[in-house]
């Protein structure tokens, strides 16, 4: 289970003379196996929420309880070292999580289809290539809960299908938190929806209801 209790997060602006509220007293709970979609417009604080859940950042007030292992945001190249090669990044992740490198590298090479680029620094990759590598590396560690930031809609149609199979078929028993501004993607994969707007999180047990609320927000815009 992951539980956010009265979580508040703001960033300093104007050299610390003032601050901008991102999350205002947010409460949220995710149980094992649940698929949650978090909808919000650009800049609504979706990625901040993901970073707080992953632990990359800390909230200003409130508590976050975690009793499940949580992945880093999937297909998210930023969680790696751009000066290292794809191979060396795989090696680093394997060592950190205590996974056998020889077994993992076979899967990463095959899945990412990067070929000789595996021995090039990530900084030489196109954005599609780094997303492919990032997704492949994410699949070598097993987590209870996967964080998915802004859709895996990278690469061509066939690659997206491959990713969706790995994630939604092979790992359908895991919890997932997906963050997007795309209501269609969220409806397809989630059973529950939360909408983030101006720092407030509204939680809906029903996908339809959540979608309608999100649409009404966009109308107002």
């Amino acid at each position: 289970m992951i539980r956010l209790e009265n979580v508040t997060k703001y960033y300093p602006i104007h050299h610390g003379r003032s601050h901008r509220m991102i999350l205002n007293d947010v409460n949220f709970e995710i149980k094992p196996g649940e698929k949650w979609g978090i909808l919000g417009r650009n800049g609504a604080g979706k990625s901040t929420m993901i970073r707080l859940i992953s632990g990359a950042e800390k909230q200003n007030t409130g508590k976050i309880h975690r009793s499940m292992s949580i992945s880093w945001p999937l297909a998210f190249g930023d969680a790696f070292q751009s000066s290292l090669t794809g191979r060396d990044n795989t090696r680093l992740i394997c060592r950190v999580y205590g996974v056998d490198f020889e077994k993992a590298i076979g899967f990463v090479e095959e899945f990412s289809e990067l070929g000789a680029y595996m021995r090039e620094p990530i900084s030489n990759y196109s954005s599609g290539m780094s997303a492919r590598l990032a997704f492949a590396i994410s699949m070598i560690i097993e987590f209870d809960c996967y964080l998915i930031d802004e859709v895996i809609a990278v690469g061509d149609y066939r690659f997206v299908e491959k990713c969706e199979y790995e994630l939604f078929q092979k790992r359908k028993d895991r919890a997932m938190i997906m963050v997007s501004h795309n209501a269609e993607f969220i409806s397809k994969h989630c059973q529950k929806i939360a909408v983030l707007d101006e720092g407030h999180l509204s939680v809906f047990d029903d996908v339809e209801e959540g979608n309608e609320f999100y649409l009404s927000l966009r109308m107002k815009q």
Partner: protein
Amino acid sequence: MMTDKMLKNSLFRGFKVQSRVIWALVLREIITRYGRENIGILWFFVEPLLFIVGIAVLWTYFDSRTVSTGTVAEFAIVSYSTILLWRNTTGRVTKAIDANRPLLHHRLIRPIDFFYSRVILEFASVTASFLLLFLAFLFLDISHYPADLLSMILGWIMIAWFSFAFVMIMGALSEMNDVIEKISHVILYFMLPISGAFVPASIIPEPLRDYLLLFPLVDCVEYFRSGYYGDAMKTYYDLEYTIIANLVMTLFGYLLMVKAIRKMEIS
């Protein structure tokens, strides 16, 4: 499957995971810093080695430095090498956490692990090149066998301890304030005369010597040199005072580091 709860359940497991993470970061650091091109990993030894050899040559031929015992070259290796421990490492740890922030998305990696991994690598590198050079100097008959090997080893450890506390303070300050990173070279430069490395304490007149020995690094270096020279050189140090001073500095460094990490995580 690994859960946070399981990790917390046993302190030993937590320790095991953290050492695994730090080791992974050390190996990662080796590749990013030395690369796989030209002599690669050999830079690990060569970089500090060139420094010490260069200073030994400079001091021997272009400096009017006099030492009461032995040659200038043998004084240089047991003195200048100690500077590398705190000076090079400071350069490595400033902004180390900030630079590695993306990796914090991995829950097993804690901010302080970046700091530890860089300190470990730098200490290992300086120690290894010192050992290599010392053995070479022994072989060439420039240096003699240490008068008291144990004191020399303990002395090195004491210098490393001081350096650890010192770089932790500098590292924490650099994370908290950009200005520190910019002026760290100035601080390091002005630390040289009071580092105990350039002249033996015995040739410094009283009461200046007493004041100088209040700085724990000088005591550490003197102790280290006493292990090498033995009775051949008069050395001054107060071990009890130095241990307490190092301890206080370490605690202060930890508190500062915890504060810096907290500040970084929140912004």
